């Protein structure tokens, strides 16, 4: 039932029966978006905003895009697209946002973009977060770039009237990205950092236990740290809480063709290989292997 290659887009069989060729329409497109903004938000992260089609701007929390990055001035030539999780989407304005850290040839290329430039974006891709309307309050736990991925989820929870506690982890207080957005979405923000020695698993577990004891954790959401994933999995099992985790993996195609981004999952006691780009990037908290 959870076998990856049996996962089919819901419309594939219904729309694409013989004789229904005219009913086909693309649900994922690669398009040339226009750069509206691309600037540093701190010493490590940059904020990229692009104008795009309505289809792209309809991206949901947890989904991602594949960006065809321009070559950086270093002479490097990024060949593949780079997966980038959604930081924000505004269907009304026709915009998507990304938050990225400059780490390699692709992001060094992204760094060169200025307003007015064109960027080839493909998406939205993957399976995003799921919010159960029955939940009253949730906890999100993120570290580094994972905070960006969790931001649209915070917005969706806020719109759905779900209360939110956000444990935001980073190396240094100046690197806790998106804190203001979480706060604007009504979250109680708890920043934990290496610099302040508050980001260790023991302290995060202490905070989580308090939130759970206070009835503030109907579900747990993770991104960006396998150490914290382990803590969350242990507590979710102890208290019988549902949860979801957004995972990262090196990708090539982004649409389930190449099987380069596989990870192992534990499903009903056996190891199952799944494609992060196609079956995820958001997975059940219990099934992920850190």
């Amino acid at each position, binding site marked *: 039932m959870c076998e990856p*290659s049996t996962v089919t887009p819901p419309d594939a069989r219904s729309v694409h029966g013989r004789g229904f060729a005219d009913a086909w329409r693309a649900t994922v497109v690669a398009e040339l978006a226009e750069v509206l903004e691309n600037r540093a938000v701190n010493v490590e992260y940059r904020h990229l905003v692009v104008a795009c089609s309505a289809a792209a701007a309809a991206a949901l929390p947890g989904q991602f895009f594949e960006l065809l990055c321009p070559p950086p001035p270093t002479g490097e030539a990024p060949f593949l697209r780079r997966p980038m999780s959604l930081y924000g989407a505004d269907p009304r304005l026709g915009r998507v946002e990304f938050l990225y850290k400059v780490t390699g040839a692709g992001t060094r290329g992204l760094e060169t973009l200025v307003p007015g430039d064109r960027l080839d974006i493909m998406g939205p891709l993957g399976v995003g977060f799921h919010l159960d309307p029955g939940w009253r309050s949730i906890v999100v736990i993120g570290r580094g770039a994972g905070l960006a991925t969790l931001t649209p989820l915070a917005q969706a929870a806020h719109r759905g009237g779900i209360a939110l506690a956000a444990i935001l982890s980073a190396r240094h207080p100046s690197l806790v990205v998106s804190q203001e957005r979480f706060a604007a979405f009504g979250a109680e923000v708890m920043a934990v950092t290496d610099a302040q020695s508050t980001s260790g698993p023991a302290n995060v577990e202490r905070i989580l236990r308090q939130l759970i004891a206070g009835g503030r954790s109907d579900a747990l959401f993770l991104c960006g740290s396998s150490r914290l994933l382990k803590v969350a999995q242990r507590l979710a099992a102890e208290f019988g809480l549902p949860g979801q985790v957004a995972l990262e993996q090196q990708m090539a195609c982004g649409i389930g063709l*190449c099987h*380069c981004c596989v990870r192992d999952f534990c499903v009903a006691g056996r190891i199952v290989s799944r494609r992060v780009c196609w079956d995820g990037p958001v997975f059940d908290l219990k099934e992920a292997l850190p």
Partner: protein
Amino acid sequence: MIAPDQVTLGVTVGGLTLRNPVMPASGTFAEGLEKVIDFHRLGAMVTKTVTRELRHGNPLPRVVERPGGLINAIGIPSKGVEHFIDQTLPLYAGYDTPLVVSISAPTAEGFASLAAQLSIPGVAAIEANISCPNIEEDGKAFAMRASTTEAVTRALRAATSLPLWVKLTPNTGDMPDVARAAEAAGADAVVVANTILSMAIDLKTFKPCLGNVMGGLSGPAIKPIILRHVFQCARVLDIPIIGCGGIATASDAVEYLLAGAAAVQVGTATFLQPAAMTTIIDGLATFCAQRDIARVSDLVGGIIIEEADEPDISWFGPQS
């Protein structure tokens, strides 16, 4: 002058009539692509390689990029032939586009029994992947030698009456000889070619960039090499050739047709531009219209070499 929509794109390749000469390369096509392009527009659909047994594939990392290309060592993860017949095959039943099933096995007998089992409704042709550089130890494969190619093709031919395409490897020293062996043993077409065995090393860690150490190079970087293989094979074969190697644009496809390919496969380009195949189909029609060529098949083998310009390439070949 003719209009692009008046150009006849249809071709006949290795026992199949295709609405156009463009199809995916095995391993770069799955149901996810259906979100991006209409499969009804393709010349054919080619599956990821199916094996008899469950295969997990290679350790990660499975791909590394290099200028103009991609080295992969995916390792043919496969859920096995039973899963393919029960779960995957029905997904493609709604299309009137021929489905070519790529197969691989460690022995000639294994290839033959897999081909027999897959000679069922819904499968239009078998593509025998006797060239994947990852599946055999140290990158060896059946298609490295004419004798093993002939043996496995003969076994396949006896096992199925479906059109039989044999996918060759550029890692052999004598591709025309291997191609002739496939033809002699009953192949209906050859696919030229699979990826080029290669590797990359990480200068930070001194470790290989791929979990499998070696992998296959694909993408625009290999196009001139594979184009040459197609040209050489076309001069010695009567059966059609399906060109595959670094095709990203309609111009690339035209080059392959001129070199002697009757159809083309597009692989790595789809990873960068997922609508690459439909763009190439449209581009072929436009190219033909601009040059007043009525049928795309008129391009096949259309390379013009003046007698006096005939290159002496004999000294490149180890056997010649």
